[in-house]
Each structure stands twice: as structure tokens, then as C-alpha cells.
């Protein structure tokens, strides 16, 4: 073997190992990013959204976004805005089954960037507490893992939401139902296969299934069980 060819082989081996080490380091870094960093970012974003909402609500109901009535204008009886502002948070969701401290903001829309900051309300579905199907999507894994324990949900579990003026307590009606990604009937006003057979005030939660995959979706349905004004304090589902 000549000196020249030996150097070439050495260079080849060295370059190859450097590429392998670099690729390995990249993969490890990406896993760290997915498992830790997206969670750190999402948790701070969600805390920020909840803090912003609470600040806004404590400033009084007149400060509802886009609904500051001009002087002399009579506030409409339905004080709630007709549409939620896209990408903005408008409610906080509590699910005691997912943890006593489990509280996530609900934002309008289900785009990728929205779901990185909280739960997303399907903008074509009903508003909170209204007749129809208030449908919400959330990450199962990454971005704070909001719906990590989704399969633990059981009939009778409370899903409590507040929009700053009213507490809405929904009760889950089914064990999580597995379906295909294209099954948009699950967020119909009267969701298909849910067992509901007439118009009502429903809630649908969707997330991905399996935990780290995207081949299926996991669905939970609930109906509105009780409402009470915020002035009356937290509902029994949260305090009990």
C-alpha cells in the first residue's frame, strides 16, 4: 500500500465517522427539542395566555375584546362577540381527571401555530355553552403534552370551562373513541356515533392516537351539565 492511498483511506474513515457523530448529535438534539424544549415553550406560552385572560377578565366584563361599546351605544343583549378573534385565547379549560392543576387556554382555530400555544377551538363549530358542538383539539405529545392522559377520561368526568363571565361544566359521556383522521362527523352539531340523538349543548375533544403517531384520532364527547356565573365562585366539579 502506498503512502498516498493510506492517507486517502484514513481521510475517508475520518470523514465518515465525523458525519456519523454529527448526525447522531443532531438526532439527540432534535429529541431534546421535541421532548423538553417544545414543552418549556408551550408551558410558558399557555401560562402567558391564561395570565392575559385573567388580567383581562379582572379588568371587568366591559373589556371584552372588540366589544368596547362606544358611549351612548346600547350594549347588545348578547354581550358575547359574534366571533372569537382568530388565534386569540378566549377561555380556560379545567379537567380534574387530567390533574388538579390541569388548566389550559382555549384559542380560536386549529392551525399548527395556535396548537403550540394551547388548545384549539374548531372555528366552524359552536361557541362555548351554545347549542351545537363546541369542539376543541389539543396535542397529545409535545408542546406541553396537554392531552397526554386523554385515555384516562371516563363517563361522568367534568370538563370545566370559563370565559370570564360564566363557568360551564360539561360531563363526559363516553370512553375515548378511536376514529380515523377524516371522520369529521365527530364534530357535527349532533356528533355521529356519540349516542346523542337530538340537538343539544355538546363538547368534543380530539387528539391524536397512537400517542406518538397520527394514524388515528381519539375523541371524547360531553354534554353541558351546569352553568353558573363567575360571581358565584368556582363550580363544585373543581372544588369538590
Amino acid at each position: 500500500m502506498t503512502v498516498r492511498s493510506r492517507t486517502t483511506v484514513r481521510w475517508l474513515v475520518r470523514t465518515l465517522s465525523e458525519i456519523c457523530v454529527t448526525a447522531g448529535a443532531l438526532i439527540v438534539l432534535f429529541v431534546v427539542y421535541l421532548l423538553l424544549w417544545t414543552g418549556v415553550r408551550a408551558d410558558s406560552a399557555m401560562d402567558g395566555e391564561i395570565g392575559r385572560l385573567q388580567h383581562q377578565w379582572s379588568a371587568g366584563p366591559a373589556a371584552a375584546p372588540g366589544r368596547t361599546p362606544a358611549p351612548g351605544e346600547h350594549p347588545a343583549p348578547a354581550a358575547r362577540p359574534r366571533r372569537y378573534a382568530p388565534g386569540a385565547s378566549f377561555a380556560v379549560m379545567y379537567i380534574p381527571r387530567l390533574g388538579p392543576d390541569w388548566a389550559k387556554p382555549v384559542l380560536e382555530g386549529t392551525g399548527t401555530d395556535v396548537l403550540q400555544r394551547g388548545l384549539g377551538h374548531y372555528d366552524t363549530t359552536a361557541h362555548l355553552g351554545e347549542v351545537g358542538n363546541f369542539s376543541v383539539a389539543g396535542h397529545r405529545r409535545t408542546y406541553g403534552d396537554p392531552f397526554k392522559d386523554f385515555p384516562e377520561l371516563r363517563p361522568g368526568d367534568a370538563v370545566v370551562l370559563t370565559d370570564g363571565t360564566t363557568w360551564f361544566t360539561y360531563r363526559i359521556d363516553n370512553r375515548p373513541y378511536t376514529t380515523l383522521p377524516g371522520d369529521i362527523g365527530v364534530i357535527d352539531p349532533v356528533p355521529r356515533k356519540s349516542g346523542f340523538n337530538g340537538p343539544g349543548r355538546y363538547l368534543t375533544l380530539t387528539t391524536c392516537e397512537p400517542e406518538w403517531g397520527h394514524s388515528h384520532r381519539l375523541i371524547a364527547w360531553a354534554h353541558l351539565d351546569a352553568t353558573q356565573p363567575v360571581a358565584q365562585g368556582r363550580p363544585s366539579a373543581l372544588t369538590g
Partner: protein
Amino acid sequence: MYGWIWRHLPGNTWVKALISLVLVLAVVFVLFQYVFPWAEPLLPFNDVTVDQGMAAVR
């Protein structure tokens, strides 16, 4: 590659080590700030809705 970079860094061993550290941190920053956020939606963890096919049509 790494050997080539090391040889082309100025200063003595300590200065080289310090510059290398800064370079590594810069690369990690760029990855976390720009590359990974771009690559992440290509993975399946974002598909949590039931109307993603529809959303593209709308």
C-alpha cells in the same frame, strides 16, 4: 472537518477551546430557533384535528 476547523482557529489551545464552545452554542441556537421549528411540523405529532384534509380545501 472538525480537525480542519480546529487548525484554522486562531490563538492557543484555550482560546481555540473557547471559540469552539461559542461555535457549538451558536449552532445549537440556530438549530433550536430555526431548523427544528421548521422540521417539527413534518413529523406526525401535530395532527390532532379531524378536519386536516378539509382545512387544506377551505
